[in-house]
């Protein structure tokens, strides 16, 4: 199966391990992720103002390029997925805005491409039962907290990936890899997102609450699909340790890293050494590396 693939900026810079593990895992499952030949930044936010159309020119251009090369576009990053999926819906359903955007890009695009998250592709094209059978190395004894954040699921009417209040997709994926999946209350709470830029204490508090809830549920690692969540949850743990007495650090992994390990892929390119909280001792303790 060949799918067009949009890596996005973060996966090409800060989260190379996310990209490498995702691409390698997909390949091992017979999904050929072909990078778009021409792409730019998606803008990284879907504008909150209803008339801010200019912010949508960038994702529209990505979708247009995708249409020239295929019918599907796969993203790994939650934010890229969010922006592309919502922009695509708007182009398909809101005629006025589509016309204006088409004037900007001086071409005709009507939202025909279907935007996927890799998780969605795994659920729909492979299926978690099938995936479970393809696992080479079951991640037995690894207790993980699946963390969804906000942008992967919301707004439901536009994204429609899973129930935004009680999502299953990441839980089911991790269970199919053999992990022990814990229930934790903060799996869809916001990590603070871009507030990291101008009020980092807010982000620290929100991210701490998430990790605290995961730890209280007995998780040994938190799993995410978003590089910004990853940054807030992983990188801030130094600050958290200084700020919250008794805080225990906990590794934060991308779902693709665990998927790759379970599929028996060599993890050298997975960027496991680049995490702030090193996940390797935990993985090694479960016989994974």
């Amino acid at each position, binding site marked *: 199966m060949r799918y067009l693939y949009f890596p996005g900026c973060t996966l090409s810079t800060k989260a190379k391990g996310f990209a490498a593990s995702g691409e390698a895992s997909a390949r091992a499952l017979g999904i050929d992720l072909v990078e778009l030949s021409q792409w730019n930044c998606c803008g990284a936010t879907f504008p909150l103002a209803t008339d801010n159309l200019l912010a949508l020119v960038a994702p529209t251009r990505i979708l247009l390029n995708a249409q020239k090369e295929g019918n599907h576009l796969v993203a790994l990053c939650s934010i890229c997925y969010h922006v592309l999926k919502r922009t695509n819906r708007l182009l398909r359903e809101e005629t006025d805005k589509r016309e204006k955007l088409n004037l900007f890009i001086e071409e005709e695009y009507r939202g025909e491409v279907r935007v996927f998250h890799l998780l969605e592709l795994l659920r729909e094209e492979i299926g978690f039962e099938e995936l479970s059978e393809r696992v080479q190395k079951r991640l037995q004894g690894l207790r993980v907290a699946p963390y969804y954040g906000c942008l992967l699921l919301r707004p439901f009417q536009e994204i429609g990936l899973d129930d935004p209040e*009680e999502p299953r997709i990441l839980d089911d994926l991790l269970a199919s890899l053999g992990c022990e999946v814990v229930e934790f*209350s903060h799996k869809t709470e916001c990590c603070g997102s871009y507030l990291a830029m101008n009020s980092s204490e807010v982000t620290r508090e929100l991210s701490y609450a998430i990790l605290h809830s995961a730890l209280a549920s007995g998780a040994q690692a938190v799993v995410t699909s978003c590089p910004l969540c990853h940054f807030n949850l992983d990188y801030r743990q130094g600050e958290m340790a200084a700020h919250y007495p008794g805080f225990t650090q906990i590794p934060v992994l991308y779902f693709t890293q665990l998927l790759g390990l379970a599929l028996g892929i060599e993890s050298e390119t997975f960027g496991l050494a680049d995490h702030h909280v090193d996940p390797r001792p935990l993985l090694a303790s479960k016989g994974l590396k």
Partner: protein
Amino acid sequence: MQAALDIADSGYEVVLVERLPSIGGRMAQLSETFPTLDCAQCILTPRTVEVGHHEKIKLATYSEVEEVGGHLGDFRVKVRRKPAYVDWERCTGCGLCQEKCLWQVPSDFERGIGKRKAIYALSPQAVPNKPVIDREHCVYFQKEGKCGACAKFCPVEAIDFQQKEEIWEEQVGAIVVATGYDLYPMERLSEYGGGHYPDVIDSLQFERLLSASGPTAGEIRRPSDGAVPKEVVFVQCAGSRDPERGVAYCSQICCMYTAKQALLYKHKVHHGQAYVFYIDIRAGGKGYEEFVQRAMEEGVLYLRGKVSKIFPQNGKVMVWGADTLSGKRVEIAADLVVLATAILPSQGTSDLAEKLRIKIGESGFYEEAHPQVRPIESGAPGIYLAGAGQGPKDIPEAVAQGSAAAAKVLALFASEVPP
């Protein structure tokens, strides 16, 4: 029921068709009623008994309308009675079969927090007080003739495992439709964890906890561990007034019954704290506003705002919400959460509407001929509406509409030329 009584009291024959084994509807499940705190069962039972004994009323319980033909003055209604596997003519209602039956299942009447036997009557005050066998859970039916304890012990040999369903036709001049309501399924409110966390319950479940004939004999004990809850959070508009995630309309009765439930909780658990989250209080009715004031004065804490999330933590149920009057976020570690879930037309409303060829409105309730000046008529001549099937309403309003429907029927019968 009210319509049946009024019409029968005027000397006309009435056939009362009820899907459940006994009459009384939702009111039979309630503990006490606002704003007078009358015991629901105490004011209901005289009515149900009167209906049960009325010589002009033919009770067809455990029955459903199968088909409707004909027209005003000459309707032909096919009624299907499900097999009860009990000969109600012989049965004396002694209850021995229910005592002897070994098989327990969660009771719908108790909203799943209490049990019933495989042979059961809805409640001790049921009219008619005759049991039915739930075939799905009866060992005799499921294991080919094993058990049969009820039949062995029945002193009047009323158990009849061979009973078949019955279908017959009634000829009637007019029809009153009063099929009532259901609650919005809690499971759909996933942010509140309804149906997943045992200590998040709906308002009818709380009614059963309050009820002296309920599974806890009227003691407030939470489902998970039977502890008496020290902090209870009531969430109004759970699914109501929420066009995106629930239903767009106001369910009308929740403000009042929540005030009642919070007050009754305070009466039963003196040192307990009750919190009510509300959007705004809609207490338009005689004595209603005063009743809500009384709840506030007796220590129920009202917080104006929505609840965003409910989740279990260390044996408590954490409630996150907003208090928009102080502009603050609120977090309450509660022992029990009661959701005032939205009112929906009862299951089967649209099917019945199709059989009767009457209209269903946008929100799924029967549509009246005119919302202002013909609120009782269905739009089809000779078919009238009563109760919550036409829209959410409280007991006095439902009773009034029942009487109004009866008046319409009697006027019709009194007129020589059809209107």
